[in-house]
């Protein structure tokens, strides 16, 4: 890909003039500080949402109601979804974008550093609203993360807090995205043409456009719920001439691109990690860019495949079935390209590569079940069952989360100048991989056999697989504490990282910056040939 002309190196030491302690992080405009904050925030939310997941799995360990009241159970499933999607996965990848995009394109910082600070500091209040909503009268939103009315109109004050939280999160995402688009379009180093950019940067450019396009739609949908609840409108109330299904159309017009907002940066990380550990350039760079763009465009045209059972007309079902199946083509191209990158490489299997291969395996399974669910008659059987739960956890957890792990292990030496414990990293991968499959693979069987999702109690024939799933889920949750330990250990006492810890990594941050990266990097842009 891009071979950079070897320019100057930063001979001078880190000359950071910034306040220390809390004020440093409150007032920072540095993309590296902000990236770090995004990542820690995401991890905190990941643990919060994870505890909720474990409450869900503990209740489902055996038939009968043991530890939760059904209403609290519904609050758990709703908040788990909202917190994991908006609080954990999305901010994690924004954290990667903050750290990596300026370094990968040879820019000194993001285009709007102060805006960047604000984009981050919008998140903690929004997340607090979601968590605090558990303690208001009536409890948190209990209508699922999809917030379908009319159920959302019955909710208590927790629903209003969730709506405000989504407004704030949406604002943060839009501002962050505009910042990212501007940075990528305007701040590239001389010679860094669009088609020379690392694929991670490309995926974020596309993701940022998706975010700008759909976050206002979500804001619109939840605002309509808000006015229906309090200001006498009847958008979704049939008694006043409204239509509950209208919400689903609007929500999924946001919701389906949202799936790719989460998946596409994950593709980007994987596209950096696999070539680095194959010691071979990414196969089919151009087709990867086009495939990513096609996926993004198609994602706007398939929303109603989440609504096959609402009774949309036959013609619409046929169209959405064909359009959805079509997404399998560019997705397949990406998987084939990754495998071709590994083919005849010189492979080594450090932790980032293990997570990337794990991603490849499990994301492909999630893609295949997605194809099964795209086929309308089959989906009508499987809609709203555990099969769907299994499907999207393969895409969200084994897809996005595994790729985030791959990215963190991959770039951690560059960020902190220290190595993580390779042996423990491998333990983390294998524990996560095995327990993840234990937790979610059996859910395919539960869904096929007819277990609906979002139920706190179930019939006896589902008992054994639910028990397996709960054991897997607890194992997966505990494995993530090992991850926290590995990171803290690396920061406090990790071995000093060499300048190029990965011999196959060839993007600007590895070739043109010392390790760890200085507080201000690329104040003079490098020249890229």
């Amino acid at each position: 890909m891009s071979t950079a002309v070897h320019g100057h190196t930063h001979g001078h030491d880190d000359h950071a003039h910034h306040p220390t302690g809390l004020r440093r992080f409150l007032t920072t405009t540095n993309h590296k500080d902000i990236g770090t904050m995004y990542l820690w925030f995401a991890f905190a939310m990941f643990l919060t949402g994870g505890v909720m997941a474990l409450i869900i799995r503990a209740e489902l360990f055996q038939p009968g109601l043991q530890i939760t009241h059904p209403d609290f159970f519904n609050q758990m499933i709703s908040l788990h979804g909202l917190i994991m999607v908006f609080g954990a996965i999305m901010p994690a990848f924004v954290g990667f974008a903050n750290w990596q995009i300026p370094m990968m394109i040879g820019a000194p910082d993001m285009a709007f550093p102060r805006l960047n600070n604000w984009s981050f500091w919008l998140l903690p209040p929004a997340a607090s609203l979601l968590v605090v909503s558990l303690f208001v009268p009536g409890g948190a939103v209990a209508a699922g993360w999809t917030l379908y009315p009319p159920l959302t109109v019955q909710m208590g004050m927790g629903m209003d807090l969730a709506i405000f939280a989504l407004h704030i999160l949406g604002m943060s995402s839009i501002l962050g995205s505009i910042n990212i688009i501007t940075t990528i379009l305007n701040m590239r180093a001389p010679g860094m043409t669009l088609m020379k950019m690392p694929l991670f940067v490309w995926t974020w450019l596309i993701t940022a456009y998706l975010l700008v396009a759909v976050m206002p739609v979500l804001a619109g949908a939840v605002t309509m719920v808000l006015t229906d609840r309090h200001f006498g409108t009847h958008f979704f109330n049939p008694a006043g001439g409204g239509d509950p299904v209208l919400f689903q159309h609007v929500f999924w017009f946001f919701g389906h691109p949202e799936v790719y907002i989460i998946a596409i940066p994950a593709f980007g990380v994987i596209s950096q990690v696999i070539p680095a550990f194959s010691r071979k350039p990414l196969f089919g760079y151009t087709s990867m860019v086009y495939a990513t763009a096609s996926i993004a465009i198609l994602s706007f045209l398939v929303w109603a495949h989440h609504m096959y059972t609402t009774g949309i007309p036959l013609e619409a079902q046929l169209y959405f079935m064909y359009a959805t199946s079509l997404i399998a083509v560019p997705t397949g191209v990406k998987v084939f390209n990754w495998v071709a990158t590994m083919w005849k490489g010189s492979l080594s299997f450090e932790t980032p590569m293990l997570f990337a291969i794990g991603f490849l395996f499990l994301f492909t399974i999630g893609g295949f079940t997605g194809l099964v669910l795209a086929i309308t008659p089959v989906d009508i059987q499987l809609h709203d069952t555990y099969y769907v739960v299994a499907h999207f956890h393969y895409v969200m957890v084994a897809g996005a989360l595994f790729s985030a792990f791959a990215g963190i292990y991959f770039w951690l030496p560059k960020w902190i100048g220290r190595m993580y414990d390779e042996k423990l990293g491998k333990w983390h991968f294998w524990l996560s991989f095995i327990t993840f499959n234990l937790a979610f693979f059996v859910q395919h069987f539960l869904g096929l056999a007819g277990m609906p999702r979002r139920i706190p109690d179930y019939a006896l024939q589902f008992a054994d697989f639910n028990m397996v799933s709960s054991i897997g889920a607890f194992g997966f949750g505990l494995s993530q504490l090992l991850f926290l330990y590995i990171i803290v250990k690396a920061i406090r006492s990790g071995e000093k990282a060499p300048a190029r810890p990965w011999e196959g990594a060839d993007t600007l941050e590895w070739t043109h910056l010392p390790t760890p990266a200085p507080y201000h990097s690329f104040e003079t842009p490098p020249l890229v040939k």
Partner: protein
Amino acid sequence: MKRNSGLTKRTIGSRLTAAFLAASAAPCLAAHARFNLQQPNSQLGQDIYDLHTLIMWVCVIIFVGVFGVMCYAIVKHRKSVGHQAAHFHENTTVEVVWTVIPFLILIGIAIPATKTLIHQRDTSGADITIKVTGYQWKWGYQYLTGEGEGISFFSMLATPREQISGSAPKGEHYLLEVDQPLVVPVGRKVRMVVTAADVLHAWWVPSLAAKQDAIPGFVRATWFKAEREGVYRGQCAELCGKEHGFMPIVVHVLSAEKYAQWVSEHKPKTDTAAVDVNKIWTLEELVARGEKVFAQNCVACHQANGMGIPGTFPALNGSAVVKGPKAKQLDTVLHGVVLDGKPTAMQSFAHLSDVELAAVVTYTRNAWNNKSGEAVTPADVKAARSKSGSAAAPAGSSTVASVLHAAR
């Protein structure tokens, strides 16, 4: 499309399976698959089952192919065995090949899927039409046309609360049993027109391959044609609030003769409520009856001890409404509670009969510490109803004709 082509094309295999099952299975045909879709009991279900199998095999073959190549690379092209990296990174021919081939495979899947879908959405030519209404949290059935026309009833969870809380052992059909199952004849096309009274629900019986969201204010249709007699079980499939996991569906598929008998037994039953009104009820009778009604309709929120869930569902024990004038309490159960212009979890229970409402109101006014000693009679309920004009008929007031017209 020829609608019945599916039936004539049935494979010998599925005929044999059907025959075997019909001969061997007891009336309770709970063919619970462990690793796959439930044993279908209709041609449509079989088509979907076969379609799923086809797609699974396509996926398995591609998966094995792609990851076979990857695993070969992992074993042979590793640095630790001294493999040197090649430097190729582009090949337009293979890119075109692996774009076009998946596209062709998708067309291969889309063709049978389209046929099945067109078959599935054709609700015309039904022998029997039944309107199903989702309530928080039970189902209402109303036979609109065909044999059994005029029958209507509610169907709700029959599993005792003690089994759910764990204080009694769980029965064989835990959470999948109802007080009054839906009854249909075998081999007849049954069209279900589906709607809801409050929030979204979804009517789903897996082995009959029928799932349809129930949407308040709108009527949507699905259909099934059961091929074997037996008992088939399903559940609500769309989150509808607290008791979403506790509103199962049970369908009894009977032979034509047994169905005719069932119809003759149940047709007159719809008039019994009217007879009851003229009966003079004692306080004890009302309380006893009311306790049952309470257990079916109210206990989920207000709890058996009448204390509700603090902060979420109000207590009835000592409640100002329950201890106050009857009229206010009757108004509450007939119309539900609306706060700030939006409905609350306390919905209208106007669909219960006068006797049931009188009984449950009397029960709450005499249970726990509410010892009023006063009875609310069915006549009181009737009077309260006529004052406000809320009819007792289940499933709303829409006429058969308008429902049939609106359903698509």
